[in-house]
């Protein structure tokens, strides 16, 4: 029988070949997930659009100059203190909220701020305006945005914990885990979101030259 004489293929080098391929893929692989601060740009205003007049106390003005120094409400401030100041501003609740579908949202009954008449009326009226110089470092700009988002998420977490016994982060995760189909969770998420809406506007940068 000729079958018996068929020599067996030597598979000893198989491991070497596999190793070579393995090392190639090990080197080329990148496992990083793209993550970033999400922002929504405002739409382009139509020609001749007159921006509505906003009370000065409802605007939280942040200036970053080209030396990466902060000026918050005309006072110099360190980046570490920005979160606290932002929370104080948003959570002030010194007046009535804005009209939604012609119905006033009334006073902010969940705010724990000082209710001072010199600061913002209601979280849904509180606008944060970030003005930066063209020469400002991008890293600093992102840092400021991050502090502002931290302030918002702290307020949202606090409210959510009080109302639904879980933080907003957990709430959002639970909603995501339900494949965005759980109506009850959706309601809760959007309730917290409208209670503390993120209103961060980027003013056109100044250029010193």
């Amino acid at each position, binding site marked *: 029988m000729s079958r018996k004489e068929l020599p067996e293929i030597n598979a000893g080098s198989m491991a070497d070949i596999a190793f070579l391929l393995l090392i190639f893929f090990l080197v080329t692989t990148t496992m990083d*997930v793209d993550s970033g*601060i999400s922002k929504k*740009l405002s739409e382009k205003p139509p020609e001749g659009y007159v921006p509505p007049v906003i009370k000065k106390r409802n605007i939280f003005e942040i200036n970053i100059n080209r030396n990466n120094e902060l000026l918050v409400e005309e006072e110099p401030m360190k980046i570490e203190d920005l979160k606290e100041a932002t929370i104080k501003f948003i959570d002030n609740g010194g007046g009535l909220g804005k009209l939604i579908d012609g119905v006033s949202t009334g006073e902010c009954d969940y705010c724990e701020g000082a209710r001072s008449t010199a600061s913002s009326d209601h979280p849904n009226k509180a606008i944060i305006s970030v003005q930066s110089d063209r020469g400002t470092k991008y*890293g600093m700009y992102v840092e400021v*945005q991050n502090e502002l988002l*931290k302030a918002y998420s702290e307020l949202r977490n606090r409210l959510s914990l009080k109302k639904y016994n879980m933080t907003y982060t957990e709430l959002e995760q639970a909603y995501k885990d339900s494949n965005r189909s759980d109506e009850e969770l959706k309601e809760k998420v959007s309730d917290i979101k409208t209670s503390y809406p993120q209103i961060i506007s980027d003013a056109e940068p100044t250029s010193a030259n």
Partner: protein
Amino acid sequence: MSKFGRKKKGMPAVNTASLPDIVFMLLFFFMVTTTMRETSLKIQNPKLPNATEVKKLEHKSLVSTIYVGKAVDIEKEGTGDKIQLNDKIANVDDIAAFIYNERDQVSEKEVPYMTTSIKADVECNVGTITDIKLKLRDVNALKLSLSARKPGN
């Protein structure tokens, strides 16, 4: 006593017959998870800013990436912040065309979900980013993600 005092006759060879299987398993894992970098960077690999409040970008096919940083080839491209679209350094005015081109590649239904990811170096100027933002606003590409790293990763 003789049981313990017995001398070993050399170690038996470890059976390596299953080694290829193990290696193949690893190989397939990396083959599946690997993503080849589609574009080669013409700018210096941007050092992304750190931020804690980051969101993961889902649906990679709906993300168009704009790189901003210093050119690798400074002699040819000059100094200052450069914008890279696809695989070449471009001008701010090319962004509109770039976005339209990206939109053509997805179905019309998905266009509102498209996100632009800006991967910019920490040392960049905000002015450059603002120029990009204004151009994106002109073409109504309003969803933006400022790429950042979570510290500790």
